[in-house]
């Protein structure tokens, strides 16, 4: 290994071993380290540009080097996790039931995995994967879906009557998980923010932009059901702008965002509301800003309040 890159890797590994990051998944750790480099740039410059470290390199070059090392180190842990997720944890059996013809599951998985690997190459897409991966790993969707199906309120109606899904809860959950993994694909069409990880992650896009991205992606992913792909890309469109967005896409948008803000808390402070309840309450007030379906947020807020989540 290039000695300069080895030094960068040593530095990154030291940061990764910080106990404060122990409970986080690899992508969240990466996000935290990028944040650390960003917020402490001024203090780090004198040390890291000294002869001891990366002598003769400009801060931008050092940052590039550190980012490369960080991605390498993260990928060592992340890639096997994601592969496990796509190849084993998420069931793609639902794909054959959301369209007229049968879809070979393995090929679908393979395409999803190839797409994910492409996403991992782009800093903005990597950032956008944080929320979906966290939400899937912590099964944020499953428990809410279960309660929604018990109550048979708005979310149930939207999934079964409006989107007309004839699937069980488990399959719907897997479909939402797959939609969440497709969601960052929109970043493949965005202008790169840079190769040092400072790109802006998911921002809302116009329906026309999503439509163009859908046409392009459809040509590339011929096995992935179009309905699923469409949901993944349209989950980046504000519900305020397009009321026709599939319920699964709206749910993917909400839970990706929840996943991004998810932080395992051992003990909630006395006098504070539970984490999910707080998040849904705050997000209800910001639903226009994030383009979420307020009725879904209302329902999940109620569930979180009643369940003490």
């Amino acid at each position: 290994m290039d000695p300069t890159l080895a030094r960068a890797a040593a530095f990154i590994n030291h940061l990764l071993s910080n106990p404060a990051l122990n409970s986080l998944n690899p992508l969240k750790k990466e996000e935290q380290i990028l944040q650390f480099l960003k917020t402490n740039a001024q203090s780090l410059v004198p040390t890291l540009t000294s002869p001891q470290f990366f002598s003769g390199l400009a801060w931008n070059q050092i940052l590039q080097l550190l980012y490369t090392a960080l991605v390498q180190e993260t990928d060592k842990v992340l890639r096997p996790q994601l592969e496990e997720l796509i190849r084993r944890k998420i069931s793609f059996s639902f794909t054959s039931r959301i369209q007229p013809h049968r879809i070979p599951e393995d090929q679908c998985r393979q395409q999803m995995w190839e797409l994910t690997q492409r996403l991992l190459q782009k800093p903005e897409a990597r950032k956008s994967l944080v929320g979906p991966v966290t939400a899937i790993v912590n099964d944020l969707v499953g428990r809410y879906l279960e309660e929604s199906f018990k109550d048979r309120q708005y979310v149930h109606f939207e999934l079964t009557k409006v989107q007309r899904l004839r699937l069980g809860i488990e399959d719907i959950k897997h479909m939402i998980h797959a939609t969440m993994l497709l969601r960052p694909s929109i970043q493949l069409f965005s202008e790169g923010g840079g190769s040092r990880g400072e790109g802006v992650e998911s921002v809302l896009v116009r329906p026309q932009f999503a439509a163009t991205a859908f046409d392009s992606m459809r040509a590339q992913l011929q096995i992935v059901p179009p309905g699923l792909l469409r949901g993944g890309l349209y989950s980046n469109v504000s519900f305020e702008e397009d009321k026709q967005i599939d319920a699964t896409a709206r749910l993917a948008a909400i839970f990706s965002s929840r996943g991004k803000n998810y932080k395992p808390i051992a003990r909630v402070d006395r006098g504070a509301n539970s984490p999910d309840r707080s998040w849904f309450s705050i997000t209800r007030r910001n639903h226009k800003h994030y383009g979420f379906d307020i009725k879904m947020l209302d329902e999940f807020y109620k569930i979180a309040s009643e369940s003490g989540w």
Partner: protein
Amino acid sequence: MSDSKSTVKSAQQRSNGRSVIAFLESLVIAAILLALVQTFLEDYAVLSGWNVDLRNKLLLAGFFFDLFFTIEFLVRFYYALMGRRVGRYLTLERGWIDFLASIPLLMFNSGPFALTLLTGSGIALGLGGLLNLLKVIKAIRIARILRFLRIIKIFRKIKNVSSPMAQRHVASITAISVTVMVLCLLFFTFFSSTLQFNGLDTAFSAQAQATADYLADKTNDPADFVLSLETLKETRVNLLIVKYRGQTLFSRYSNDYYSQYFAPGDYSYLSRDELELFFDQRAYVSQLSRESILFFVIVVLIVLAYLLIYSPHFALTITDPIHVMRRGLEETDYNLEVKVPKRYHTDDVFELAKLYNEKYLPLKDRTRNQEGESLIQFDPAAVSRILPEEEDS
């Protein structure tokens, strides 16, 4: 090199010093709790008719506790004096409680009793008139009320880390309540005769005086004296012993019984020329013990009520919401809402919490992405140590 050695040594000394202080503080807590148990048992022993031996041991234990707290007060006072913070110690740190719950008790309550027990004399209980004796007993027992103040001392030791503010408020309100109650009891007791609030003591002493005068009148006529004594034996059940010219004419119990069940203060003595009378005062002492236990229970219940009812209420309605809001304002990643209980939603604190929940948190959430903060704390020294170690290896 020598500098670093001396630094290590002084750090070790400081650490040892802290351990000693922590041990002494724990010792004080244990002493307070034991002293409270002793205070209760001292009265309970009177009411239950425990034998004198046991009661004397309890009295002696009380004396040692008072001595211990007097030493504690003097040590704290000395260090406050050395640190030029006597005013702070006596007021803010509640040194006045340390004082009231130690020196006056040692001087006016357990000290005189201990002296009586150790010297085997009745010096402390007064050899004067009956009324004076009763007043002395009453004053001594009332002084014991000051012991209740020790309960307040415990609050100084409780460290509720999550909310020192709640701790301080509850400690203050408890100190005020207990002190007001204790001072009222003391004031009422000492000024009851001035205020003409006559009680059992006045009636008791009047009756004893009348008995003594009546018998003294009969000493001129022996037959009449014997007849009167026979009547008094039956009608004055608190008359224990009658002596005339040094000879015991009547004794209600045996000497063994007296030595087993009559502690100092349980009997009184009156003389008229060559006539000497002893009266049983246990009923009066029991009455004082009953009152004392009642006050004790009231004080303990007041303290428990503040601790178990008011303290959680204070935390729920004041410190907890403030704590949550402070964290939300201070920490970038903290976004939990304040829980607003329906029945207190109009409180100022919860009005503020509503604004925090409904205005501040959503605004913070919208701006957080741009101002994210890393969980990793920056340590320049740690950063500069990373690579040289790698190279060494």
